């Protein structure tokens, strides 16, 4: 494993859209930090273009979107924007409350998993860890293998 792969995972924990309740996302950020990851934590109300800029600059591996009401409805648009920016290797999970009948659209748009509010700490951490490995090894852009 190269030095680059031995680094901690870099995870963005964010909220897009209109909802401002951030208690849950802060708890998840703490879980991931305690598991050794570097968490870039934003306040609510991030725009999609702001997220794309942040993900680019911070070389993020995984995005965790916290959505309690309806903000998940614009996640597919975020996935599109990430693809357009050449960031499709960045995996996305959604945590919070998503009506059952709207989950399919998220998964179809490329979201890796949707966690409900009762998800256990270990479950989240283990999944993010394995997803992070996928994200790094699945990178096929022009800079994926610069390192010997």
């Amino acid at each position, binding site marked *: 494993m*190269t*030095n*680059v792969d*031995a*680094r*901690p995972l870099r995870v963005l924990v964010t909220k897009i859209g209109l909802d401002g309740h951030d208690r849950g996302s802060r708890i998840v*950020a*703490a879980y*991931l*930090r*305690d*598991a*050794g*990851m*570097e*968490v*870039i*934590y*934003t*306040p609510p109300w*991030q*725009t999609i*273009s*702001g997220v794309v*800029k*942040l993900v*680019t*600059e*911070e*070389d993020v591996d995984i995005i965790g979107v916290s959505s309690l009401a309806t903000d998940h409805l614009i996640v597919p648009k975020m996935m599109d924007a990430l693809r357009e920016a*050449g960031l499709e290797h960045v995996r996305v999970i959604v945590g919070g409350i998503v009506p059952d009948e709207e989950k399919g659209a998220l998964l179809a748009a490329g979201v890796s998993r949707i966690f409900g509010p009762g998800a256990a700490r270990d479950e989240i951490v283990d999944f993010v860890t394995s997803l992070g490995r996928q994200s790094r090894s699945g990178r*096929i*852009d*022009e*800079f*994926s*293998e*610069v*390192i*010997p």
Partner: protein
Amino acid sequence: MTGMTKRAMHALLLQRLRAGDPKAMARAITIMEAGGPAAADLHRALQPSTGRALAVGFTGPPGAGKSTLIDAFVAELRKRERTVAVAAVDPSSPLSGGAVLGDRIRMGRHTEDPGVFIRSIGSRGHLGGLNASIQHIVDVLDVAGRDVIVIETVGAGQSEVEIVEVADIRVVVNAPGLGDDVQAIKAGILEIASILVVNKADLPLAARTVRQLRSMLSLRRESEGNVPVIETVASSGRGVAELLEAVLNLAPQTPEERLARRRARVRRLVAEAAAAEVRRRIMERNDEPFQVALSRVEAGQLSVEGAARVFAAPDSDHDPAQFQQTIIRKRQ
């Protein structure tokens, strides 16, 4: 993409970095954070193109309003159409190695501005080597064409001093009433400060803090130059333009000054690398003449400084007999 050779990818990264592509900047920073031979290689490749950007470091105790001040400082720079990069260093947990990197969120104004590149950096417990990484990251941002690079770290302890030393201009931010004003000035911070800021200058105790700082400065040697003390109210923007003026005044103005600064930077980098290298050697040595020398220090026959001078000498590794001689001579 995977059809490219590693060498070609490397060249492409450099090319895109020089063109200011944020994706290339991010990837290059990742390599520098990871350290090792790849980082050293990339750093070497960057050297000829460095020296243009101005690096400004901000540090100070928590609660001083540093992030708010940086946010306003960056806004001021953008008003003058300078491009900016911010490297925000946050402490990583010594236990888990993880971190919540939360400085970026305090720069809410700049989340959509491509003229402000922001990267959050966890200290990852390598307090010894962090400043080398930071220097490498500064060089990446420099080569990418950013006019001003802001380095942000919290606290005023030894590790923060080392990080902010990487900057050409060091701004130490204080605020009145943060408990022990003097405490914030210990740990060598005052020695390296180029500018002192008293933020939240609208508070009643601000005048006293300014006086305290000025009197501490007056105790410094004349040769260390004049350190301006600037009052700001970051939340309203008051004093920020003055701060920027003070920073620009201290920046190298002529090509000669720029070269001199660059030389100083390189010298410091080599010194730090040398110190790390010597340290590594000494910690790993176990041969007999070496152990003998250590016993001599324990017995009071050889001073620690004397031993250090010998161990750091270029020939101390090669010829044990010669080394023995040197030790005996020192003793006499």
